C-alpha cells in the first residue's frame, strides 16, 4: 500500500470539490489499495455523510448512496415492493461484508477477474495496452456477453442486477451539478477502453439510487454459484414478471455473471410479452439473450447454464409446474 492522505468529508459539496478518491464501506477499495491497483494520493471518507436514508420519492423510493447493503435488504418497503432487490442483496457476499458495503460502493465495485488483482500479470483494465491475461488463461468466472478482445471481465454485483431489472436511476453530484443517469446508461462496455467502466467523471459522487414506482408482479432472484454462500455468481438472473389472464403482461429480466455489466436484453422481454408461458417460449427468450455470446474455453458452460436458470426462474415466476 502506498501512503495517502486521509480526510473526512463534511458535506456533499466538500466531497465533490475534493476531486479525491472516495471511501465508503471500503470493502473493495482497501483491497485494491493493498495490492496497489488503486493508488490514490488522497482518500476522502464519505461514510459519515447524511446519505444513509431510504425515503419515499414520488411513487418510488430514494435510496441514499451510503445505505448499507444489509439495511437495504432488510427494509420493509424494499422487501414488500421490490423483493428482487432484497433477495439479490442477500445472495451477495457475506453478512459481515454486507454490514459494511454501501449502495454506491456496490455499484462501483471492480471486477473479480483474478488477473486484475495480480500485478505480476498483464491486464488492460489495470494498465491499458498491457494485454489481457484472462484470454488464454483461467477464465471460468469471466464474461461471455458484451466482451471485447481487450477485456472479458464480468461485473460482480448482485445488487446492480436487481436494480437493472427495476429500471433504477443513479443520482450523481458532480462539478456541473446534479445528474440522473438511468442504470441502463450507467455502465460502459470494455471496447478498447476497459479501464473506463461507468459514466462518472472524476470527482463525481453518487448520492442516491432512485427506484421508480413498484412494478408489482412476481419477483425472483436466482444465483448459481460454486458454493452455497459467499461466492460470486456463475450466472444469476433477476426477473420481475407480471401475468394477466394466463399470458405474460410484462417481464423485466437482468443477468449477472455473464457480462461486464448487469445485462438486460429488451428483445427477450418483448418476446415474452403477451405470450402464454411455456418451455419453448423461455427457450426463445434465452436465444435472444445469448445471441452474440463469445465464450472462452473455461466459461462456455455459462450459456447452457443461463438458459436453464432463465427457464427455471421464469417457470417459477409464472407459477408453472416445474418443467420436466
Amino acid at each position, binding site marked *: 500500500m502506498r501512503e495517502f492522505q486521509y480526510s473526512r468529508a463534511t458535506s456533499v459539496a466538500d466531497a465533490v470539490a475534493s476531486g479525491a478518491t472516495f471511501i465508503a464501506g471500503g470493502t473493495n477499495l482497501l483491497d485494491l489499495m493493498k495490492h496497489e491497483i488503486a493508488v490514490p494520493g488522497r482518500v476522502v471518507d464519505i461514510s459519515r455523510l447524511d446519505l444513509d436514508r431510504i425515503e419515499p420519492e414520488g411513487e418510488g423510493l430514494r435510496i441514499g448512496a451510503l445505505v448499507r447493503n444489509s439495511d437495504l435488504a432488510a427494509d420493509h418497503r424494499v422487501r414488500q415492493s421490490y423483493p428482487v432487490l432484497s433477495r439479490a442483496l442477500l445472495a451477495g457476499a457475506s453478512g459481515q461484508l454486507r454490514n459494511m458495503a454501501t449502495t454506491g460502493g456496490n455499484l462501483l465495485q471492480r471486477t473479480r477477474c483474478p488477473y486484475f488483482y495480480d500485478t505480476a500479470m498483464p491486464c488492460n483494465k489495470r494498465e491499458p495496452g498491457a494485454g489481457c491475461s484472462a484470454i488464454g488463461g*483461467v477464465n471460468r468466472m469471466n464474461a461471455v456477453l458484451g466482451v471485447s478482445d481487450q477485456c472479458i471481465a464480468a461485473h460482480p454485483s448482485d445488487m446492480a442486477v436487481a436494480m437493472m431489472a427495476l429500471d433504477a436511476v443513479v443520482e450523481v453530484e458532480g462539478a456541473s451539478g446534479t445528474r440522473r443517469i438511468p442504470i441502463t446508461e450507467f455502465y460502459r462496455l470494455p471496447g478498447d477502453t476497459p479501464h473506463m467502466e461507468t459514466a462518472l467523471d472524476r470527482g463525481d459522487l453518487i448520492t442516491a439510487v432512485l427506484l421508480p414506482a413498484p412494478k408489482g408482479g412476481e419477483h425472483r432472484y436466482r444465483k448459481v454459484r460454486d458454493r452455497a454462500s459467499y461466492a460470486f455468481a*456463475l450466472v444469476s438472473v433477476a426477473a420481475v414478471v407480471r401475468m394477466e389472464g394466463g399470458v405474460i403482461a410484462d417481464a423485466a429480466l437482468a443477468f449477472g455473471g455473464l457480462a461486464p455489466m448487469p445485462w438486460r436484453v429488451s428483445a427477450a422481454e418483448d418476446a415474452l410479452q403477451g405470450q402464454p408461458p411455456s418451455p419453448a417460449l423461455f427457450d426463445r427468450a434465452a436465444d435472444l439473450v445469448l445471441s452474440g455470446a463469445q465464450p472462452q474455453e473455461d466459461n462456455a458452460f455459462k450459456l447452457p*447454464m443461463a438458459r*436453464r436458470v432463465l427457464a427455471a426462474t421464469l417457470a417459477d415466476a409464472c407459477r408453472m409446474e416445474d418443467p420436466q
Partner: protein
Amino acid sequence: MTRHRKIDHPDNDNRLDSMAQGVLGKPVDRLEGPLKVSGLATYASEARPSGMAHGVLVRATITKGRVVGIDRQAALALPGVMTVITDPRMVRYPAQGMAGKGPKAGPDVVDYHGQPIALVVAEGFEQARHAAKALRITYEEEPAPTDPDTVTPEVPDAKQKAQGDLDAAIRDAAFSVDCTYTTPTLMAVAMEPHAAIAEWDGDRVTVRAALQMLASDRKQLADALGVGPEQVRLLAPYVGGGFGSKLGIAPEAVAAAIAAKELGVPVSVALTRMQEFDITHRRSESRQRVLLAAGADGVLTGIGHEALVSNLPDSPFSEPVTQATPFTYQAAHRRIAHRIARVHRSCAGSVRAPGEAIGVTVFEAALDELAEAAGIDPVELRLRNIPDREPGTGRPYSVNRLGDCLREGAHRFGWNQRRAPKERLEGEWFIGMGMAAAVRVNMLIESRARVTLTEDGAKVETDMTDIGTGTYTILRQIAAEMLGLPVDLVEVHLGDTDFPPAAGSGGSFGAASSGTSVYLACEDIRARIAERMGCTDAELRLQDGRASFRNDTRELRELLAGEVLVAEGHVEPGDAEKQARQATWGAHFAEVAVSRHTGEVRVRRMLGVFACGRILNEKTARSQCLGGMTFGIGMALTEGVEHDPRTGHIVNRDLAGYHLPSHADVPEQDVVFLPDRDGFAGPMQAKGIGELGICGAGGAVLNAIYNACGVRVRDLPATPDKVMP
C-alpha cells in the same frame, strides 16, 4: 529418570481401562479455549518484541530461470526501508515434513512462478510491502513445462507393484470397471497464515513460528542457516491449523532469521493469504485410473490403481495416492502404478491425509461404479471383499473394523431407504444417498515428554504442538488419569524446543505418540508412588490426589513430603508395526440434493462411523472428524486450484476464489466412534484420528450425486456446470 519403550509387541493390557480418575475419553473442554476466544493466545506473528522490523518476501514472476539483477535503489530510497536481502541461504520452498535438513536454498534460481527471491525489510509492514513492489528485477528465463499431462512422467520402480494378471482378470470378469478420475491441486489453507519472528541473542536465535513439528523443524532451520541445532530455539505455543502446510520450515522462517542477524533487531515475516497460495506446499493434482474386475457375486478378482501426480524436479515427495489400496480389499490380481510428472508448479507436499484423502475418495467412487454395474448394493459389495489378512504380505491386521463400521453406518443412516437414481424428487431437487469406506494407515513416531509431580499437582512438558486439535487437553487428561488428579491440577506446556522432543503434529500420529510418552513418564512416577505404598503399580489406585492400596489410603501430598518426582517418557516404534497391518477404519454416508435445473448440490446430512482405537477425548476427537468430513465436502464439491496454463502459478489465490465449504455448505454431520482397542498401537491402544475423517468422505458425496441424478462426475470438484443433469 527415563522410562523408554519400544513398541515391539502388542500391548493388550488395556491398563487405562482400570485407572480410577475417570477423565480420559471424557468430552473435556479445550484447555486453551478461553485464551483463544479472548485473544490471549498469542500466535506466531502476534509477539511485538521492541524494535521489531517487518520483512516481506518478493515473488518471482517467471516460471523458471535465474535472477540476473535486482535494482534495489528505488526500494531503498523509500521511507522506512532498511534492507533488501538476497542471501544464498534463503530457501525456495518449504521443507517436507520430518526432513533432516533444510529445503533447497539459493533464491537466485527460480523453480516456479511465485517463488520467493528476496526479502525487503522495513520499519512498517506496509512500507515493506510497498517497497517489495518497487523492486526492479531482471531475469534470464528458460522454458519450463507446467502441465503434468504434457511431460513424460517418471516411473519409480519401487512404487510399481503387480501380482497375478490383472488384464486377464478384467477380460474374464463378469463385471468390470475401467475409469479415470482427476482431482485438482488442493491447498491446506490453515486459518493462521505462516509467520515467523526471529530474534538473535549472540549466536543463538529464537524463532516464534507457525510450525507443526518442532523437533525436526529445528534441525531443518539450523541446517538452512548453517548453525548447530543447539543454537536454534523454536517457540510455537499456539498454532492456527496446519493440515500439513506447517510440517517443515518454510521460506519465511529462514528469511526472518537471516534478516534479524543482519540488522541486529527482531524481524517478523508474515505471509499474506496470497503468498500462502504462492509458496506453501500444495497437494498435487492427480489423474487416477481404477480398474476393477469382479465375479457375478461381486467378489473382486482384480484391482488396479494407477496414479499420476506431479512435483518439482528433484523433490523427494510424491502424493502417495494408492497407499491404502493394497490392503483395503482382497483380489488375486493386482496392479499399482505410480508416476510422477516433473513440472514447474509450486512444490507439492503433505496436505491432510496425503494419499488416502484423494486416493480412497476416488477408489470408493470407482467401487460405486462397479456396484452399479453389478447391481449389488454398495455396502454389500464392500462387505464381500474385506480380506482376512493383508493381501500380498499375508500379515494379520492389528484389527480390522471396516465391516463393523459399514454395518453400523448403514443401519444408523437408514441406508435401506436408498432408491435408484432419479427416483426421489422433492420440488426441483433430486435426492440421493452415497457411501464410501474410510481407511488410513496408522503410525507411531518417536516422542518424549517430561512429567513433574509436586504437592500442588503435575506438569507436562514436551515440544509437541497443539495446532488446534486439542493436544493440550488430551495430554492433560492422560496425566490426570494416570496420576489420579483432577484435570485442573495438571499444567501442560508445549511448543518450545527447550522441552523434550516430541513426534510433532502430523500424519495423525501426534496424539498417540506424544500421549504415550506422557503415559510412560506417568508410569514411572506411579511405580515410585507404588513403592512408597508397598505395592505394585497394578495394585495401586490413584484418585483425586490420593493413593490407595487395599484399605490403606494416603494423600499424595503426604507421600511426597515436599519431594518433586520427575520422569521422562520416551516411546519408539518397534517390531509391532511390522508384525501386523495397522490402519484406522470407518464408513462415510451422505445424502445430497441436486437441482435438476442448475446442477447445484447441497449436502443434506452426513454420517461418519469410525474405529480408531481408544478415544482420548470424545469432544476433540469428534471435532477432528467433523473437520475431515467438511474437507471431504470441499474436495467433492468446491475446492480446487486453477493453475495458469502459461506460468503454472495458482490463479485463484485468495479465499474468495479458492472455495472452502461455507457454513451453508455444511449440513448436519453425525460422528460415531465404535469402541475399539488396538494393542499394536502401544500401551494406550490409541490411534490416529485427524486424517481418517477426510479419507473417502468426498467419495460418499460423489456417489450420492450419482444416486440422486445419475450423473457421474469424474473430474473433481463437482461444481454445478459439471453436474447439470
